[in-house]
């Protein structure tokens, strides 16, 4: 059994990698993860070491991406910054995915009940605020910092996750095999955990991938605005903000970190897009 299922996932993986978007997205995301894990070895310089003599130095063989306004090595700061961004994104998705699965599953399974109504009305209220704004308001209350930033973006991501999970559960619920499971007397708990959730997993995981990108974007935006991670911690959004005053004399200070944010978010977006195409049978049928 175990062998067969391992084999099946290998076949699935091979099929997935034939999708160019998934392949490209996976490469970018893996590179990011490697960068974060191996940061200590990859950094050519101490990312916190100030050297005013090298202030705003353009890219050179010693400092491949140049130095910032305090003479710190930009490349090393970008590498260490990947830990901050990925760490936040992971925390955000874990938090909002967990809450979203719980709320969305109950809401979807008991569609139309008072529970569903109540959950969806609360989500309506949260959805009034565009995500970044809701996170901003929460940070205004809690103050800045790594944990607060993660929680704020996480809470701001709960409503969209709940909606996606609810939608997935509702569409799976209509299937015959759920009816069959109910007919043979399976408990509600077992139907939800063994039949509905596994079958609704694909769109949920696809959405989670896209939300990783959104979380990276939000985290850097809020830090750029001064509400998230605080200096001197190397965070990509702060690094862009650092270069604001030197756009004329040293545009590289803002340009490189921004480029890295864009690439990271693009990686998650393309991967999510590819997964979406892959799992969405309607698109597949039409193409095939």
């Amino acid at each position: 059994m175990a062998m067969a299922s391992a084999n099946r996932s290998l076949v699935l993986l091979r099929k997935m990698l034939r999708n160019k978007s998934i392949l490209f997205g996976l490469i970018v995301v893996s590179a990011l993860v490697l960068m974060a894990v191996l940061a200590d070895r990859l950094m050519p310089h101490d990312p916190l070491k100030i050297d005013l003599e090298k202030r705003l130095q353009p890219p050179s063989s010693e400092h491949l991406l140049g130095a910032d306004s305090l003479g710190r090595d930009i490349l090393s700061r970008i590498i260490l910054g990947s830990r901050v961004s990925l760490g936040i994104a992971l925390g955000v998705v874990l938090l909002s995915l967990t809450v979203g699965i719980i709320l969305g599953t109950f809401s979807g399974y008991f569609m139309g009940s008072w529970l569903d109504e109540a959950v969806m009305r609360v989500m309506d209220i949260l959805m009034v605020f565009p995500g970044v704004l809701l996170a901003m308001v929460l940070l205004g209350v809690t103050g800045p910092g790594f944990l607060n930033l993660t929680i704020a973006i996480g809470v701001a991501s709960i409503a969209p996750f709940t909606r996606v999970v609810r939608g997935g559960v509702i569409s799976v619920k209509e299937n015959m095999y759920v009816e069959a499971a109910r007919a043979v007397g399976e408990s509600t708990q077992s139907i939800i955990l063994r039949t509905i959730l596994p079958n609704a997993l694909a769109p949920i995981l696809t959405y989670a991938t896209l939300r990783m990108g959104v979380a990276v974007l939000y985290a850097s935006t809020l830090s750029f605005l001064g509400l998230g991670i605080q200096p001197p911690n190397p965070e990509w959004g702060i690094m862009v903000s650092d270069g604001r005053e030197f756009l004329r004399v040293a545009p590289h200070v803002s340009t490189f970190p921004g480029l890295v944010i864009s690439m990271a978010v693009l990686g998650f977006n393309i991967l999510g897009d590819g997964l979406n195409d892959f799992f969405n049978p309607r698109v597949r049928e039409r193409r095939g």
Partner: protein
Amino acid sequence: MLPFVRRRLLLSLLTLFGVTVLVFLATQIIPGDPTLLLAGPYATKEDIEALRVYLGLDKPPIVQYLMWLSRVLRADFGTSWATRMPVVYEIAPRWVNTFALAITATLVATVIGLGTGIFSATRRDTIPDHLSRIVALLGVSMPLFWTGLLLMALFAVRLGWLPTSGNETPLHYVLPSLTLGIYYAALLSRTTRASMVEIMSMDYVRTARAKGLPESVVIFKHALRNALIPVITVIGIQFGYLLGGAVVVETIFRWPGIGSLMINSILTRDFPMMQAAIMVFALSVLFVSLVVDLLYAVVDPKIRYET
């Protein structure tokens, strides 16, 4: 249609009520005593107690909420802790500025987004289509604050064609609207393409082609008209996100709008100002989504008949 409108209005009111509770609760759980902050370091214990009674903070939370709500309903958001001026004086002109920016940005987004979306959909799976999709994906991946800074570095700092900050002349609108517009154009382009591709595979489009109608008539008269319905919804939904993005863009270009006001009020912990800014944001988003939903019901006969 009337039951639909009634239900939609009721839901909006309910949501708005929820928003007021949320905003009130948010300021309740703020760590630290606001009276200490307000009274300053030299206040005596009696001063602080008097201030607490004056602000109504000695009353139970429910009473405080109702007092706050009744003031908010009269557009009285209190006095700014930073400027000691009524908050409304600051909010009103800034809201006009933000709204103006949102409109010009929406125009930019609609023109570019619809254009590239239609372009892509009508050349489906060709190289120009792939390129345009990649650019659109890149557009939603680049952080607004970075694109804004790049545009500023190029057109304002290096070339000197456009001003870097402020909102005095029409020229001041160009860079902020472009920054905000490009991002939403990318989103819109993706929706337009998806919607057009879907519609173009419909039977009536095939019929129109079979009749021998010119391709431009098929695209613009038969396909686009129907594809526009979801696109209009997206434009409406995006309005809220546009306001979120405005916070960033206003900060970069020193645009005197609600967004930059909100950031400042958060950074300086000016809570009455923050509450007011949030409420104005929420009201605008709710209003626009209500209007879009009602328009949608007018445009799409299915909704009218079903409810």
